[in-house]
């Protein structure tokens, strides 16, 4: 099942660019249809925000990057060509902005600060049933393990788990080679499994 899904993902990259409904919405927005943009934004706001938040681990910086990413989308509406999936293009913009921010040596939130920020965003503990405590702990462990991954591995894992992108799409977003992406994912997932089995 997973194989079929991945095969479909591999072969449908170029076709997705043609029939991608999000791309059609973007083209409609470029023609002046604001409702098309609102639909597009509703489809991708959550996944983009989570990708940014878990990548930079700083809520304030996440808000800035989120807004800046959509500003770029708006500004480049006239030049938009649906050569790839809209989500891939959107994540590429976000990733580039994130990398630019890192190059400017802006310090990211430390581990404690990130943990506090993410904990504040998690579901309140009082809402959790007692029997789900172990599952909650496992999620916290996974969250911490993802945060502790090297930058490149963390981005690859987030794109894979959150966005369910193929290796090629991750390679397109990050600008790395396919095999490099695959290697990063292998290392990252091995590390996550180790943390969860401890």
């Amino acid at each position, binding site marked *: 099942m997973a194989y079929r899904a991945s095969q479909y993902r591999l072969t449908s990259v170029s076709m997705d660019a043609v029939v991608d409904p999000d791309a059609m919405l973007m083209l409609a927005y470029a023609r002046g249809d604001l409702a098309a943009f609102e639909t597009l934004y509703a489809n991708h706001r959550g996944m983009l925000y989570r990708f940014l938040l878990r990548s930079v681990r700083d809520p304030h910086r996440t808000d800035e990057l*989120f807004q800046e990413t959509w500003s770029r989308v708006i500004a480049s509406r006239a030049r938009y060509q649906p050569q790839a999936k809209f989500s891939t293009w959107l994540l590429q913009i976000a990733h580039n902005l994130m990398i630019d921010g890192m190059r400017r040596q802006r310090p990211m939130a430390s581990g404690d600060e990130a943990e506090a920020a993410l904990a504040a965003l998690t579901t309140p503990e009082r809402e959790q049933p007692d029997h789900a405590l172990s599952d909650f702990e496992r999620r916290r462990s996974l969250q911490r393990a993802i945060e502790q991954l090297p930058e490149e591995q963390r981005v690859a894992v987030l794109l894979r788990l959150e966005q369910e992108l193929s290796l090629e799409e991750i390679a397109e977003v990050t600008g790395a080679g396919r095999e490099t992406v695959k290697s990063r994912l292998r290392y990252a997932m091995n590390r996550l499994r180790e943390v969860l089995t401890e």
Partner: protein
Amino acid sequence: MNTPLPPDHDDDLPGEAELAALYRKLPKNEPGPALDAAVLRAAAQALEPANDESAVGVAPRSRGVRPPWLIGMSSAAAMLLVVGLAWRMRDMPANEAPAMSAQVSTHASTTPETSQAAAAPTRSARRSSDLASGGLVAQNHSERRPAAASLADSEAEKTTTVNERRMQALRAAPAPAMASAPTPAPAPPPPAPAEMSASMDQLAAAPNDLPSLKKADAADARDASATGRVAPQVVQTPAPVNELSQNAAAAPAQTYEPAAPLTQPMAAAPAASLPASDKPTLGELSAQDASPAQQRELDEIRRLFATHQDTEAQQRLERFHRAHPQWQLAPDLDVHLHKP
């Protein structure tokens, strides 16, 4: 025989399904409503100018209207430029006249050394060299002819005084320098230009006819200014070519050197009344009549004798004596000359 390998399922990662399931249980964080509103507002604002343009068909206001302060600044800058140019154009003739007169006076008060050095080129050559060296000045003059014409009149007045001095100098010129031309001239002097000879004839035939000289010189000055020559040229006979050479002693002393008489004071005039047969001694002449080049040569010969370079000194002394047989040498040099 190789068995075909199974297809490479590169996209499969071990344990991915378990991790993905756990990841999906993570809280779904989403942007706040303020962030949503900001993005949607930006998207709506981006469409507004396009809607306005397409609906009304009018260019945005910022394209057509220029700020009033820009117009004011441009006008002020243009006015300043015009006033500056007018001021500059008005100052040009006034600034140039002193420079021209200074150049005239420089030419008129040429020192003996410079006149001797400059005596070699003929008048025409000098004119061409003036044209070449003062090309810029000539060009400026040709562009501003009225200024040059008015300047020519002032030059004519100045050349009058120069010509008066020249006439006195011709009268006061030492007879030996003019009369005793040696027969073996080292090189024939270049032919004097027609106007030069005419000028000399004028000077010789009517030495007291100053008005005619003034007219001629004024015309000459106008001609000079019209052709771009700034300063009036002193009447000079062409010097032999070898006078230009470094060996000043070898230069024939019989050449008429006009610069010296021009700059000589009036006290030199009595020397003209001396008969040609009365040879003045060098001691008598050295102070006033001997040219500085000859005096320098004799000083140099003395210096060579003093520094015991007798051979060279002797040769130069003999050469000097051959070139100037009419001069009586001072006793200290005469002794060396008649040494066996």
